[in-house]
């Protein structure tokens, strides 16, 4: 099951030149771009591992593309995303975040039902991938 998280997630995967164009857009707006990765695809998993520091004071996408490619090389079967962080007062938040790398096979989720008091049912998601320990998922 293809995971749809972040911006552009319902589009086909971006090519490198398309990623580069998005990064240039971030830089044009003075956003700090950062690269993050994870192998836990749960939608509530907001805190991914950082691939190095967020890159402030960058003028050109070349350096960021380099980091993205390094991260993909190190974790070819992880999810890798690119964030654009806007530090201007009032925003101070991530303005753009999109996935640039995903595992070849994404097993997806199943729904867990829990019986609550008074026959109420609580639903939650469970990712098949996380049945294996961290680092061994998506081999």
């Amino acid at each position: 099951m293809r995971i749809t998280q972040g911006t552009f997630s319902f589009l086909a995967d971006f090519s490198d030149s398309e990623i580069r164009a998005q990064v240039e857009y971030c830089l044009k707006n003075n956003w700090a771009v950062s690269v993050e990765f994870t192998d836990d695809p749960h939608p509530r998993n907001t805190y991914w591992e950082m691939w190095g520091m967020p890159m402030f004071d960058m003028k050109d996408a070349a350096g960021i593309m380099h980091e993205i490619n390094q991260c993909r090389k190190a974790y070819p079967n992880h999810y890798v995303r690119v964030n654009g962080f806007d530090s201007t007062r009032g925003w101070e938040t991530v303005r753009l975040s999109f996935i640039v790398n995903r595992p070849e096979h994404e097993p997806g989720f199943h729904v867990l039902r829990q019986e609550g008091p008074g026959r109420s049912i609580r639903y939650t998601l469970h990712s098949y991938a996380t049945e294996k320990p961290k680092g061994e998922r998506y081999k």
Partner: protein
Amino acid sequence: MNPDPVVPQNLPDDTPVDLEGAFRDSRIQEVLDQLDRELIGLKPVKTRIREIAALLLVDRLRKGLGLISGAPSLHMSFTGNSGTGKTTVAMRMAEILHRLGYVRKGHLVAVTRDDLVGQYIGHTAPKTKEVLKKAMGGVLFIDEAYYLYRAENERDYGQETIEILLQVMENQREDLVVILAGYKDRMEEFFRSNPGMSSRIAHHLDFPDYSPQELLSIAKLMLEAQQYHFSAQAEKAFQDYILRRMQMPHFANARSMRNALDRARLRQANRLFARNQARLTKKDLVTIEAEDILASRVFKEGMPDEKAGAKPGAAK
């Protein structure tokens, strides 16, 4: 997203080429004119810049006709004494290369050893890479580059920086241009001990010292920029000052001129106060008089005003 423009193949040999039009469109003449106007002297440097501009322009035309045009290596070394305009020219160079489409952004990142070399094992590579990433799309200016290599200490972390630099200079030529700068003799020694670096640098530009006449023109330009001017006697006195100052230690060309003018402005302000004149005119405020210059220790004691001397080679 942006498909490459269709490149024509096998055009006939007599296809007309609009070199002049391309030159106009790049608006490179403006930058060259500005260079001529604002930088006094430096003849060999200007010639070389013109040559590089011509090469890049022709290269671009060749590309338009579908001819092979490998990105030329444009890494440079600027050698010369302090105050000869290395940093200033580097900044212009970034702009010129940007106009010619050789670098994408045209910013200048000026660094020294401290910005590149770490303090403990494993600190250097990330630090150097960080700087390189920031410089991408523009020009990386390494001032006093010879400090990167310390012959007496083979475990110095500078070596690591040099290796990373070499790799990027070779493999990411289209992403950034590296300019190394420093004193001539020490740079030559640096290149001797790092032949790999020397062979990757295509352009060695030597910045000659300024003649007294050029120094005077520079001083006048500086004053003009600050909206001051010399009185006729002051100009004579300053000419004399230049000749004397050039013989003294720690002479730093244009930077010494800047310092001398700053001190002359200080004395001028003092003089205006001391005279306690009720009616000053605008003319008084913008004119540097001979006495402002003659009060310098260069005339009185025969030594430069700055006690510690100008820091050699320090970029402003």
